């Protein structure tokens, strides 16, 4: 053995860990909002849009779902500048996360839209609502209720996956851990502590989403 654990550095590191965790929370909050919005548009477009749009959305979903997030991130951050699109790390990370999440949630939202009985649309049209009103006020709320648990899981998966954006120097939780261990030479202890922070974040996020969903969408959401 000959190795003893040392957590003495922790007292000076709480500030950095808290800052990193705050950035991680910011990343996932923005991604959740933008990704969900994008996936509602995408799922609706895939069902009712023109043929070309349907095809394009289909290709987008398949490409994202069948390639690693890390490669998507590198492509956006390192690859796009060579065709003139230069993004700073935080924006590149947000773009990559949003595009990644939307590809998964388009399928989820789509399944929710399919689960709403056709009679709901017909009844709403018969009452004189315009098609857009039917979608926003009748179909979408019911669809969101059905898919809420799946959406919750996807948000948490995305939060865990966001650890990867440390690789393009976004100062989130993993990046702070990398910096800390380089300074303290206590790699195992540092990553151990940060892993526990992630565990707490993911459990807290799940609880928040479940209770928030229950309030917003009514009972029956688990």
């Amino acid at each position, binding site marked *: 053995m000959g190795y003893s654990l040392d957590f003495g550095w922790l007292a000076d590191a709480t500030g950095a860990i808290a800052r990193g965790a705050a950035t991680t929370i910011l990343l996932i909050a923005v991604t959740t909002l933008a990704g969900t919005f994008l996936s509602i548009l995408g799922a609706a477009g895939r069902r009712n849009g023109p043929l070309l749009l349907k095809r394009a959305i289909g290709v987008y979903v*398949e490409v994202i*779902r069948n390639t*690693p997030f*890390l*490669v998507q991130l590198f492509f956006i951050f390192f690859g796009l500048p060579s065709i003139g699109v230069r993004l700073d790390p935080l924006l590149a990370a947000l773009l990559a996360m949003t595009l990644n999440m939307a590809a998964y949630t388009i399928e989820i939202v789509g399944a929710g839209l399919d689960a709403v009985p056709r009679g709901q649309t017909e009844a709403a049209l018969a009452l004189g609502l315009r098609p857009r009103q039917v979608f926003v006020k009748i179909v979408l709320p019911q669809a969101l209720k059905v898919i809420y648990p799946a959406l919750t899981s996807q948000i948490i998966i995305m939060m*865990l996956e966001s650890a990867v954006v440390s690789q393009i120097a976004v100062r989130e939780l993993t990046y702070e851990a990398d910096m800390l261990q380089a300074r303290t030479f206590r790699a195992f202890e540092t990553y151990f502590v940060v*892993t526990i922070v992630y565990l707490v974040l993911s459990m807290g996020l799940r609880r928040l989403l479940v209770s928030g969903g229950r309030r917003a969408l009514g009972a029956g959401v688990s």
Partner: protein
Amino acid sequence: MIEFTFWDMVRNLLLAARWTVLLSLAAFVGGGVVGMVVLFFRIAKNKWARRLASGYIALFQGTPLLMQLFLMFFGLPMLGLRIEPWTAAALGLTFFASAYLAEIWRGGVDALPRGQWDAGASLGLHYLQELRLIILPQAFSITRAPTVGFLVQLIKSTALTSIIGFEELVRTSNAINNATFEPFTVYGLVALIFFVMCFPLTQYARALERRATTN
């Protein structure tokens, strides 16, 4: 500067892709074996065994894979084991896969009607025989689609092992990019190679799913 033609890039990336494939297979097989053990605990009659397995699964599903790999890479040397990136990557992904596979298969076991257990017991089979002859074959057969789906996730996850220094596809592409300064082409090619590996499996999983719903 080294001169790299387009075909040099492709050739080097394809050579590196061998390691991605090998690591995926090793982790899938290893994860399957460890996952079986976790599954036995997860569906055991003993309450504490079940809790232990639930905790194991929650731990791996509630923390980033990157952290698991780091802990493996920096933690094992503390136990006096000499460790190389390949070992850390294979072990880390094995444990990661075992948690997910155990949870998928548990879903299959739970989906079976209670009567299957009762029928087994009434035929005089003991617990292990019931599992081996009746429960597990059916559980595996109804969870084939999500299992293949997870294999796709696992292949994509191998990209993270580049960060702890394992020379697979992504790490090689970083090196090529540093030599050629053509990130658009290099990462585009890497994405294409991953797509070619994953897309057929995704389609296969989808076909299995369709077959399962029509039955």
